[in-house]
């Protein structure tokens, strides 16, 4: 099989993995090829608007598993291919030199057994690092069920490791991925957490969940994420809107992937990690799903309107973070600026505050920006929703709601 055909098959099989970040590692260029940038660099953007930072391919799409949602499942009649380690090295190095990519994201179907697959991954990456002295970014998938010895070897070669938990609950996994066991994934996470250092998986670990293939609520999903962040110190949890590839009575029949829901989950994920929100602030048993029409932060603020409007010049950093339209950067700027002068309304825009969103929730120097009569839930909600509507792509998922 020609290299181009293999590339086509094995990139196509790899494209559903959401992660493409190349951040968190600080490899220096010595006598070898390349280095890494601590902040990561996006090199291109695909037709779906997702960033391309790494050469994202599978080593092989042959797989002994039969996960219902997966393109590469055993029972699918598709063309199968396998890269040789040398082929992967050639592609990576040639793309890297031309500045197409930051490095390699290597995943694989399970061929023969987990240990065998893992050994193939290690062999390839070992070659890339030690024969070709590649110092760029490498993200590898850890194969659940492989021995800890191999996990150790692989972790010493790569920048980031990930193992996908695929579905947020045990039941979902049993239903759609009967060959997989969630305990194998948590074993990997535990191992990486304990051993992580500058030498071992320096950029930390991440994972991915499929959204909308099973019936889990957003509350279940976010609780799972919060749990993963706390328990295993994950760098990222990725959410991947379910794309209906296979037909199966166990799978929902969707016309479009639930992209807005995916977006809301990412927004909430940021609130957990950078804005000191807890899952219980955002969702509860009565409201187990995010409002599709309003972002989670504005939605929270509208449900807690009694805490607003907040005075920019006096409220704490934590309170600033909870104001819609104010991010981590602008909150920090406000704190450092107001030690030196009193902040007026016209200064706020210059600090990166999104006034058209924040204006409903703040006092600046004791002044409310719009008419105080309009400080009521209905009015603000309507205005926030009108703004958001232009951001939501018009597709059937949205229309159903009106």
């Amino acid at each position, binding site marked *: 099989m020609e*290299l*181009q055909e293999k*590339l*086509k098959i094995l*990139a*196509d099989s*790899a*494209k*559903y993995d959401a992660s493409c970040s190349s951040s968190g590692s600080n490899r*220096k*260029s010595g*006598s*070898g*090829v*390349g*280095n890494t*940038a601590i*902040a990561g*660099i*996006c*090199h*291109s*953007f*695909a*037709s*779906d*608007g*997702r*960033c*391309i*930072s790494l*050469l*994202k391919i599978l080593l092989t799409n042959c797989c002994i598993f039969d996960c219902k949602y997966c393109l590469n499942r055993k029972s699918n009649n598709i063309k199968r291919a396998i890269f040789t380690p040398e082929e992967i090295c050639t*592609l990576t190095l*040639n*793309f890297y*030199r*031309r*500045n*197409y990519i930051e490095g390699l994201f290597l995943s694989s179907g399970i061929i023969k057994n987990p240990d065998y697959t893992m050994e193939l991954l290690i062999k390839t990456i070992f070659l890339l690092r030690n024969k070709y002295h590649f110092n760029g970014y490498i993200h590898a998938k850890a194969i659940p069920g492989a021995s800890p010895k191999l996990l150790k070897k692989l972790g010493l070669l790569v920048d980031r490791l990930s193992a996908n938990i695929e579905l947020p609950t045990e039941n979902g996994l049993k239903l759609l991925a009967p060959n997989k066991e969630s305990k194998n994934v948590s074993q990997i996470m535990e191992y990486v957490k304990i051993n992580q250092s500058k030498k071992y998986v320096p950029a930390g670990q991440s994972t991915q969940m499929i959204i909308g293939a099973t019936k889990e609520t957003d509350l279940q999903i976010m609780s799972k994420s919060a749990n993963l962040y706390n328990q295993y110190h994950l760098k990222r949890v990725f959410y991947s*809107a379910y*794309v*209906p590839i296979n037909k199966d009575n166990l799978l929902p029949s969707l016309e*479009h*992937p639930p*992209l807005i829901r995916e977006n809301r989950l990412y927004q909430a994920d940021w609130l957990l990690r950078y804005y000191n929100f807890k899952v219980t602030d955002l969702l509860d048993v009565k409201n187990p799903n995010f409002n599709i029409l309003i972002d989670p932060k504005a939605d929270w603020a509208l449900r807690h309107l009694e805490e607003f409007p907040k005075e920019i010049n006096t409220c704490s950093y934590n309170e600033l973070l909870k104001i819609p339209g104010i991010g981590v950067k602008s909150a920090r*700027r406000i704190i*450092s*600026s107001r*030690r*030196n*002068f009193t*902040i*007026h309304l*016209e*200064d706020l825009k*210059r*600090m990166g505050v999104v006034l058209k969103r924040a204006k409903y929730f703040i006092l600046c120097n004791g002044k409310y920006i719009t008419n105080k009569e309009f400080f009521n839930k209905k009015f603000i909600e309507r205005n926030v929703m009108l703004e958001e509507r232009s951001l939501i*792509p018009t597709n059937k998922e949205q229309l159903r709601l009106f």
Partner: protein
Amino acid sequence: MNNIYIYDGDFISLLNIILYLLKNNLHPENIKTDVYHPSLFENTIYLSILKNEKIIDQIISAFGQYAMRSMYYVFLSKEENKELILYYFFQNALKRRHKIMYYHNLKCVSEVLRISNYVRHETHKMKGFLRFKELEKNILYAEMEPTNNILFLVSCHFVNRLKNEFWVIKDNKRKIISIYDKKQFVIVKEEEFKLSQKESKGEQNIEFLWRIFYKTIGIKERRNERCRMNFMPKKYWKYITEVKEEL
């Protein structure tokens, strides 16, 4: 009379002139490079000031690294009145010293922040979007047309990234070229450096493979043209291997 002060286009000269003006309490209408054509009502003044290289260190110790870097980024921008903005920034920095960057309520500070961020962001984008071709003799060659004058900043990145390669980067808008010989890079004018543009034997094949990858990796059920364009503006497409055909 409106006094326009002229400098030679060099950053250190500009800083020296600004400092001189501030010390002597002179208020410029504007400060421009020597290619500037004054109007009838403008008076151009050439100052012969000793170029003091130490001014960079002096500024760093007086206003901090962050202020210095931001000033340099503003200097590299395409902003029309950048010299005047730097003059006002300098004036205020003499009063506020290390705290100057906190004063978002001063217009000159917020302008310096806005413009320097613009230059920084474009540099970061270009680190990703620049595409090299392999020419004969293993030379890597790239062209770009950035909005701001970021060739120097981009070159600094590739000195570390492609340390053991010969590479050449050309800024087609400013007609300048950066050349790296595995030790250091120099920036020269276009006409000072001739290079055979003949591609290496394998080049077309690698570009072809990259286009295959690019087309394959997008999920068609998620197609989102607006999102792609937001992240990768069309003005850069001309030199990006995988999308230039779509133009």
